[in-house]
């Protein structure tokens, strides 16, 4: 009873989460608490389960929860459909966003925004907002009329993800390797976008190998994810440990 009251007050609670992909168990008892308005960084070696965590929070049906719970604003997410999670304010920036030919960025984003807000949005009104956000991300206006991610470079795809973040304005944003493969200038622009989104209402989970993005954002917490569990949590000073020692000492 007491536990459930605590859970209701928390923004996001992950308890003893076990997740399988195919036959392979990737997450093995992961625990994580996130409050409203906080920025959390998840770091860890390849294959530790970082992307799995992102996908399972978003509800990718390829990932199966075998044990544990994800509680978001007091609701258990475990069996909730992907689009319903999006409507509750969860967003994931994809490491490798899909290319969707034939659907323009503008039409897609307006459809998504209308789906999430469940009300019609006027074309001209939306154009204005879109133009503004694209300018912030230094995206050429013509991208609004291009097919979603089709033929975009790696950097353009990441910007397109952050554009979607800014338009949809989710309460929980999970950025999966958003800074990987970007040059210094692109990282700056992406960081600018994420900063724009950051607020007392919005929480952000940043999954990364690097501290590229972290130089520009002030994370509240840093967690190490190794072998499917959070093995250490602390403040930004943890990053120095990784820089010096890597994750070796945390492995079993």
């Amino acid at each position, binding site marked *: 009873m007491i536990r459930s009251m605590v859970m209701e007050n928390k923004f996001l609670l992950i308890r003893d989460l076990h997740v399988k992909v195919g036959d392979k168990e990737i997450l093995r008892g992961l625990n994580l608490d996130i409050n409203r308005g906080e920025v959390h960084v998840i770091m860890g070696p390849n294959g530790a389960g970082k992307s799995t965590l992102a996908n399972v929070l*978003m*509800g*990718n*049906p*390829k990932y199966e929860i075998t044990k544990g719970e994800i509680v978001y604003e007091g609701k258990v997410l475990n069996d909730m*459909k*992907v*689009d319903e*999670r*999006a*409507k509750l304010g969860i*967003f*994931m920036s*994809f490491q490798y*966003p*899909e290319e*969707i*030919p*034939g*659907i323009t960025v503008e039409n*897609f*984003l307006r*459809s*998504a*925004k209308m*789906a*999430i807000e469940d009300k019609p949005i006027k074309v001209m009104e939306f154009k204005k907002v879109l133009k503004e956000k694209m300018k912030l991300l230094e995206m050429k206006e013509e991208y609004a009329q291009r*097919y979603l991610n089709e033929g975009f470079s790696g950097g353009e795809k990441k910007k397109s993800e952050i554009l*979607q973040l800014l338009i*949809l304005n989710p309460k929980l944003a999970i950025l999966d390797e958003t800074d990987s493969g970007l040059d210094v200038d692109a990282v700056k622009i992406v960081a600018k976008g994420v900063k724009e989104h950051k607020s007392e209402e919005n929480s952000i989970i940043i999954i990364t190998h690097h501290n590229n993005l972290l130089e520009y954002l002030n994370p509240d917490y840093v967690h190490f994810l190794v072998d499917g569990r959070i093995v250490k949590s602390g403040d930004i000073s943890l990053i120095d440990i990784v820089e010096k020692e890597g994750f070796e000492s945390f492995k079993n």
Partner: protein
Amino acid sequence: MDVDISRKTYVEDIDRGIYDIRNEFKYSYKVEKGLTEKIVREISEKKNEPEWMTEFRLKSLEIYNKLDVPVWGPNIDELDIENIVTYVKPRTDMKYSWEDVPEDIKETFTRLGIPEAEHKSLAGVGAQYDSEVVYHNLKDYLAMKGVIYTDMETAVREYEDIIKKHFMTVVPPSDHKFAALHGAVWSGGSFVYIPEGVHVDIPLQSYFRLNAPGAGQFEHTLIIVEKGAFLHFIEGCSAPKYSVNNLHAGCVELIVKEGARLRYSTIENWSKNMYNLNTKRAVVEKDGTIEWVSGSFGSKVSMLYPMSILKGERARAEFTGITFAGNGQHLDTGAKVVHTAPYTTSSINTKSISKDGGVAVYRGALVITENAHHSKSTVSCESLMLDNKSRSDTIPVMDIRNDEVDIGHEAKIGRISDEAIFYLMSRGISEEEAKAMIVRGFVEPIAKELPLEYAVEMNNLIKLELEGTIG
């Protein structure tokens, strides 16, 4: 100016239901089922044709009897010509005003939006009901410029020399069994003649409606676009559904003269008891252009491969096609291009969707003769299968006899990926809408080539067809 022409026509959204409204089967005359010399003579006599046409029909019948049914394509064993009525004359002569067309037939075309489209955005309309054209009209200003747009029967009488010279020369009856059948029992269709230099600024449209059960429709379309002239011709076809098989074996012959351009758009939405064995071919002279836009949605079996023969230097062919095969449908469609002159270019761009056990096959042929040096051709065909029950295939044949050519070929067969659905759903879009979005996106490059009312119609069809597949 030219750019807009293909998008100018507009009628209200079309609901699929209208295709299935059948009228009571009334007619003034029909021949017996099957195919005999007596029947062929009867058709010719009824039409009061000149001797040479009667002879042409009989010769075609002879060829028909000698040729075998093609076996390389879809199975058409169930099609029994002995059970097809080849000629059904509606209870009216051809009219030049909708007022004079019998009420039930007029109603049919009104539901299909034809008179309204004519009023709003077409230069002329022809409407065929079963075997005969019931309405034909052309705007006066085009008639004054020498444009001819009439039904084939009238053309045989009034423009006998032109018809005699060209009729079934582009597609000879000896081409294949169904071309021969067409030669023997053809009825209705349109004749279009665009004089030198005349630019027809808005499209002409012929609509073919087959209402009679167990019947065949064999309309003949002959279009001649003279030197430097331009025409956009739209062809629409539909039929209500019956439990017996119907047959459509039309023939389209297009002659594009030097520097002329012809855009030929078709949407066929036959009911799913129809065998659509249609032959279309264009001959293009020096600097001429043929543009095909072709949408195949209906029918039980389709075999349709519009062919372009690039006969003069720098002649061009463009083919854009979309095929949507649902439950019980086997749609074997594609395009053929024959380059017989230097510096000729062609591009073929097709998409197909199959679902619910439907079979969509792209079958194409590209021929480049010894003569056709510096020719260029690109072929791109993409297929999307919406489930595991459906089939898709690509059968491209190439016969290249010159080394100095530039050829590109690309074929892709795919399914809707779970990753793409997950991606769209992560932005708040429902699973159904995500699928529809991917399909709409897939056909978008083709949809934008279609005349607007057909693009709207296609989107509606895709929505309706998909609604059935989502559990």
